[in-house]
Structure formats: C-alpha cells, structure tokens
C-alpha cells in the first residue's frame, strides 16, 4: 500500500514539504492536506494591502495545482487532536484521518494587547488573508491609522498603509521601535527617518484601553494624551499554534521540539516552520524562528525525510529585511548577542549604519541600514548573510572589517567565502525550480 503522508497546515512549511515529497519519493505516495486556510503566503499580504497585486497572487497552490500534485484536501478544517500511537488525526468536524507519517505545520497566530476594547470593531490584527481584507476595506485616503506595536510585522505593512494615503501613528510599549530586530542606534536612525516621512511615533507608551468615539476609535494610555483614529492595527506579537496538541504526547517547549531531521518526540510525527523549535545555526541551541526562510527550509527537510531520504538540517539562520520609505533595514543571526565583540559605523552623508558582531574571528551577527536604491546596500545585505551563514574564519579581515564596516565586498571575496558556500545545498542536491514539482500520474 502507498505510504500515507498527512500535512497539517498548508502555509509555507506545509506546501514546501508537499513539493519536496513529490520531488524525492521513489514510489507515488498518498498525500492529504488539512488546513484551516487555503495555501497562501502571509508575507505577500503587504503587497495585496497596497493594491500592487490582486488577491489571487497570494496563493501558493490553488485547488487545481494541489489536484495536479495528487493531494487530497480538507481545506477550512482544523486538526483538533493527534494520536501518534494510533496514527490518526481528528479534525474539528470529527473526521478521523489515518496516516503513516504526519507533519505539524500549523504556524502561529497573532496576539492582541490584553486591554479593554482590543476586540472591538475597527481593531484588527494583520496576520491572515481575512484580516488583510478587513484592513484594506477599513482604510480610505486620509484615514488615521494607529499601529499598536513597532515590531518587524508592523514594519512590513508600513509602506502599504502610507501608499493608501493614510496617516500613520505607531505606538510602542518599549522605549524604542523594532526592539527584537535591531539595536538602539539603528532604531534611533529609523525613527528619525520615519518622522521626516510624516510617520508619528510614540515609544514607551502603555496602552490602557480602546474606546468608541463617535464612529471613531480613541486610544487611552497609562500616561500621556489620548489618540483618536479611524482604524487600529494590533501588531503586538504572535504565539505558536500548539494548543491542539495537548494530550498527544508530542513534546513541546516554545514550539514542537524537533531533532536535526525535523522529527518530533513522537514516532512518525515531524514539525516545521513557525510551530517548530529547531536548531539555531549560530548558537546551536533550540529556537523558534518565525520567519519565511526557516519555514521553507524546515518544510523541505521534513518533506525529504518523509519521502524516505535521510537529510540532516544544519539549523536555521535568523534573517530579516524590511524597507520603510526607501530605507532598507536588515539584521542577521546573533545581532543582539551581549557576549559578542562588536564594531559599528554610521555614515554622516546618508542614512547608513552597520554593526558587525563577532565570536572569535567569525561573524555571528550583523545589522545593516541603508538607502534601498544603493546597489552596495543590497549587495552587502547578501554578503553579510553569506559571511554569517558560512561561519568562515576571517583571520586578518576581521580587523579590516572592524575598521571599515562598509567594505564588506573586499573581505567577502578575498576570504574565499564563495568557495566555502558553493558546495552547500539544503537537500544535498541542486534545488528544483518552483514549477518543476512532478505532477501525479
């Protein structure tokens, strides 16, 4: 009988796993997908919000594509319980789906600030396609939007809100913006940049409640004046979707604990993406990396192992990039490691900042800020990722980079990073193009 694979969650990790199973398997298997939402990429939602793409553009696999791949689907259904001993997953409508192996790829969900009024009308999260539709419908030219939370996800939709002609105020509880993406110096530069582009920012502001005010919304704070606006977006963090695994016996910590093959503690149960706690490439420690590249790599490794290959994962690297008002902001790896040796540089003539972090003569983290039109900013973004990813000892180049943090390319080329990286692939073979997934026979 054909192996029965069950994929739970059809986001980035789930779809990458399905494609990889089809690429790797020797014999055609049965694949079933259970997903609360149809397959799409969340990180494309900002471009739907600014109307630069149609809604249909966000989908990563349509019903027709899934049928072409020979995938049976339960879309709009949630997994409610998992019984790894029996090899069954029970859905929210009571259907029991038997499997030989399964992948937990249920991602994460947004969390709202625990204040009165947080669930009221015209208060939105921005995580799902449904929520994106709601926000798009609620913003008009001239609207005043208040974003609660100044983290990475908030920043991914900042340009979109401005391009819809809305006025934007960002409020953040921490004393500065982007507290989990860049350091204080970088945050100061981004804050000043945004203010010159008309974005109002209030940091150190503790939201107390949200009230209705004659068809508008009023935000009250523990200290300081009220804010009145037309729409509130809560970008106040996310939590992993683990609750449904209670009683399954699958070990969870901050996420589903997985080994270097993306296997959980339960037999034949894998986990990938936002919901998984895998290895951090830099520290070697377990970590939840709720970013797209980790979901892609996890999904591919899990899929290959489910298809019968034995593929080890080297660990995931935190990489984040966001552009706000033509300023690129990016960070890599252990950019906030307090034990690292650090060197930084600011350019006086343009908004450009670099910070490089070292353990010994290896680059373990970096922060980069620069105009998005600068070729060298874009190219250095990639090379910094390469330096951190390769973990190559930089010898004498370390001192050079510490003195000249803007001279990345020379150090990259001369220390042979290309040679170190070229043999590296995720699956131990060249990657296939997105359109090359074998279709069912």
């Amino acid at each position: 009988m054909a192996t029965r694979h069950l994929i739970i969650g059809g986001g980035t990790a789930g779809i990458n796993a399905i494609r990889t199973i089809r690429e790797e398997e020797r014999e055609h298997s049965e694949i079933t997908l259970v997903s609360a939402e149809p397959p799409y990429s969340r990180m494309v939602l900002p471009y739907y919000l600014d109307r630069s793409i149609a809604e249909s553009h966000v989908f990563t696999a349509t019903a027709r594509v899934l049928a072409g791949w020979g995938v049976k689907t339960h879309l709009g259904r949630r997994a409610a319980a998992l019984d790894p001993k029996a090899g069954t997953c029970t859905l929210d409508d009571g259907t029991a789906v038997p499997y030989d192996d399964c992948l937990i790829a249920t991602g994460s969900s947004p969390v709202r600030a625990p204040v009165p009024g947080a669930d009221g009308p015209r208060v939105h999260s921005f995580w799902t396609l449904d929520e994106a539709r709601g926000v798009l419908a609620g913003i008009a030219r001239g609207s005043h939007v208040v974003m609660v939370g100044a983290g990475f996800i908030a920043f991914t939709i900042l340009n979109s809100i401005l391009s819809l002609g809305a006025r934007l105020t960002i409020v953040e509880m921490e004393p500065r913006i982007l507290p989990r993406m860049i350091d204080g110096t970088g945050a100061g530069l981004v804050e000043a940049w945004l203010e010159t582009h008309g974005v109002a920012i209030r940091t150190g502001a503790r939201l107390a409640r949200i009230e209705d005010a004659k068809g508008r919304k009023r935000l009250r704070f523990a200290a300081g004046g009220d804010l009145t606006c037309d729409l509130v977006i809560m970008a106040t963090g996310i939590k992993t979707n683990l609750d449904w695994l209670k009683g399954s016996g699958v070990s969870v910590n901050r996420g589903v604990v997985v080994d270097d093959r993306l296997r959980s503690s339960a037999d034949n149960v894998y986990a990938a993406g936002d919901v998984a706690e895998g290895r951090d490439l830099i520290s070697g420690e377990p970590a939840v990396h709720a970013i797209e590249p980790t979901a892609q790599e996890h999904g591919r490794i899990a899929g290959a192992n489910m298809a019968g290959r034995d593929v080890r994962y080297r660990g995931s690297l935190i990489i984040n990039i966001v552009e706000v008002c033509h300023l690129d902001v990016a960070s890599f790896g252990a950019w906030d490691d307090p034990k690292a040796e650090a060197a930084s540089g600011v350019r006086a003539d343009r908004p450009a900042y670099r910070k490089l972090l070292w353990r010994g003569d290896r680059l373990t983290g970096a922060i980069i800020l620069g105009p998005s039109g600068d070729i060298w900013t874009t190219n250095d973004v990639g090379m910094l990722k390469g330096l951190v990813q390769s973990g190559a000892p930089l010898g004498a180049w370390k001192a050079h980079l510490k003195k000249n943090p803007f001279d990345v390319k020379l150090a990259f080329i001369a220390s042979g990073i290309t040679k170190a990286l070229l043999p590296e692939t995720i699956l131990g073979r060249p990657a296939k193009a997105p359109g090359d997934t074998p279709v069912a026979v």
Partner: protein
Amino acid sequence: MRVLRLHPEKCTGCLRCELACSYEQTGAFQPAKSVIRVSPFEGHTSYAPYTCTQCAEGWCMTACPVGAITINAAGAKDVLDDTCVGCKLCTIACPYGTMFYDPATRKAFKCNLCGGAPACAEACPTAAITYEETATADWLGDFARERTARVLTGVS
C-alpha cells in the same frame, strides 16, 4: 551547463561588461542597472568582475514566497517580473550578494545569462569573461587574496 567563467587577471577595468549588461537587460546604457559589477583592487591597479554563480542551491529561488524565480532554458535562475512582488527576501537569502533591486519598478533582478548568450562575455575585449561548459567556481578568491595583502597589513 555553461556558466560565466571569470578571469580576473585579464580584466582591465574598462567596464564594457557593465554597459553591455545594462543595455541587454534594460535597453539603456546605465551601469547602475548592471548585474555584473567590476571591483577595483589595490588602489585601482587591478580589477575583477563579479556576478551570480548560478549556485546549485539557488537560495534566491527557494526563498521567494511566490515562486517568482525560476530556471530558464540556459539553466540560469531568472526573475519573472510579473510574479515578483518586490519583497526583497531573495536579496537577503542570496549569500553571495548578487541579487539586485530596482526601487523604481519594485522588482528584484539578477543575472539570467541573457537566456544563453551573455552580453558581458561578448563585450569583454580581453576575454576576462568567457561563457563555458564547466562547473561554477570561486573565480576571484585567490586573485583577491593576493591583491589585498597590502590592504590588510596596512602598507597601502
């Protein structure tokens, strides 16, 4: 597959490859849009071109959330303009720093080997760029290590 082989010791820094590349890719001579880039070494006494290796993993391609990077007939990773949303994930995923982004069009762009007839190789008067059937490699590492010894010891 045929790849761009770089011979840095032959490069004179004439920048014809950058002109040819931008012309082929955009229809205008604008080196700022070139995806092959010439770097100076040792106080502009030697030069070397640098571009996408068409690496086996294709980190740019596997990172793209919408499948906008594919493999063209020449075997090159190629951006499909109509599909690219401009999210920049490929620019941070490519560990060689050979992805580009155009703020005017909000699209990523990269070397696509001109579909099998690379304009840079044709334009180079000294054959410092050749289009050959060979495995991709680190063409510049050894050259650059030699030419930068003085930068590192602080003599220059």
